[in-house]
């Protein structure tokens, strides 16, 4: 029995899940198929509705 958690995908959802879990004290393994995390959101210039920078 282990409490480690595997997160598949390092886009905004995977990143948020991983950070939440890590902050709660759980060991997280985050697996991303591309060379860097960030996913589609890292490609975005700004986001709605506040026009904040995506990254």
């Amino acid at each position: 029995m282990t409490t480690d958690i595997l997160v598949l995908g390092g886009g905004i959802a995977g990143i948020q899940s991983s950070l939440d879990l890590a902050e709660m004290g759980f060991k997280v393994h985050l697996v991303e198929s591309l060379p860097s995390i960030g996913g589609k959101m890292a490609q975005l210039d700004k986001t709605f509705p506040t026009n904040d920078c995506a990254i």
Partner: protein
Amino acid sequence: MLDVGRHPNIELMAYSELIKLDGKVGDFIATIRKKARFVEADKCTGCGACTEVCPTSVSDLYNEGHAERKAVYSWFAQGIPSTHVLDPDHCRVLTGKRCGICQKKCQANAINFEQTDTLVDLNVGAIVVATGYDIFDPGKMPEYRYTELDNVITAMEFERFLSASGPTAGHIDRPSDRRVKQEIAELSKQLKKSKAALERFEKAHAQDSCDFYKDFAANTLLPGDALVKDADKWAAKYQAHLEIQGPLQALEKRAGKFTTAKKLAFIQCVGSRDLRFYPFCSGYCCMHSIKEAIIAHEHDNDTHSVIFGMDIRAVGKGFEEYKIRGGNKSNIAYTRSRVAEITRGEDDNPVLIYEDTIEQKVIKRAFDLVVLATACAPVKNTRMVADILGIELDRFGFFKTDPAEPLDTTKEGIFVCGCSHSPMDIPESVAQASSAAARAVQAVMKNKKAS
């Protein structure tokens, strides 16, 4: 992103994929393949010296193919981890040619052409699936001529054009204009070469190529002249020179009139709400079209945008106000219509053919640039991932969930969030991701107590 790379509780495995899963909730064994980067992660400092010297250029998918990267690269400038990657399909050494210049240049000795894929077994109690989505390929809709017309692009391509770090440094240069400029650059290079060749002849015979060619064409060269032995070669070079110069001047004249794109059309529901492809609403596209039109207007106040859609679905906190603000302050017109076809007009302008449903008239209208709001499609290899995890997909190809337990997949201990669950925007993805994290904790703690 930076926090993920730094957090002591997160082990980040980028450039890796799940290949096998055994066990059950509380005690899964997941086999991960760490793909060979050919760059040692513990040595690479991410300085980019290898990228600078790499001689091989490859289409950059991060910029949706509108820029080029090298065969040794980082996915994007601020990427986490910053470790570079060698592209095994394009690297000269890895495709059996001679090179290795990056290895010589790397001061950290991080380049390792011998690296191989490694397998790692992880023992985990629960799994959160957040594999995202793919952008619908608008080439499947012949009526929009996405593959034929340079100036019909997807919203993600437009997003890269808007970005200061993108291929156009934030200027909305039309792809057709960029292609012309590229041709000009290539022809200029050829012209420079041919000029150098002509100069050699001119120096040797102390005569201008133009004057020589006049004599040559009029056949008035004196038989005893030292020129005669070079005459045919010189004339051929001069003819080739003129053949480059003519088209180059024509292209330069065209390029002189180029401006950034000012009249933009956004077409909604490209692939979504379409029974041929995906019947569902992708949810975020109305808003990102408005956002892109607002940003384009911020870049250049002469920009006018028309958003063509069946209806504008601004459902979310602050979204309706955002839509109205765009209409009032950012020169955005919302036209209720489903565009029937896009054809090629003058100056590479796409021409939209659509019915204005208020005027009840079929209208043909030219724009500088057309942006397609493409559907949120399930990732291509979702089926494979589902088979490895042993979970089911819904009829569209997203992971199957129950409305009463919206984050639980069909296998206990595996949860799903974000666009691999269903199309959703960023705030919703973030909210769902936190929920999925909470569900995963519930699953592992329940099992820990039981054991």
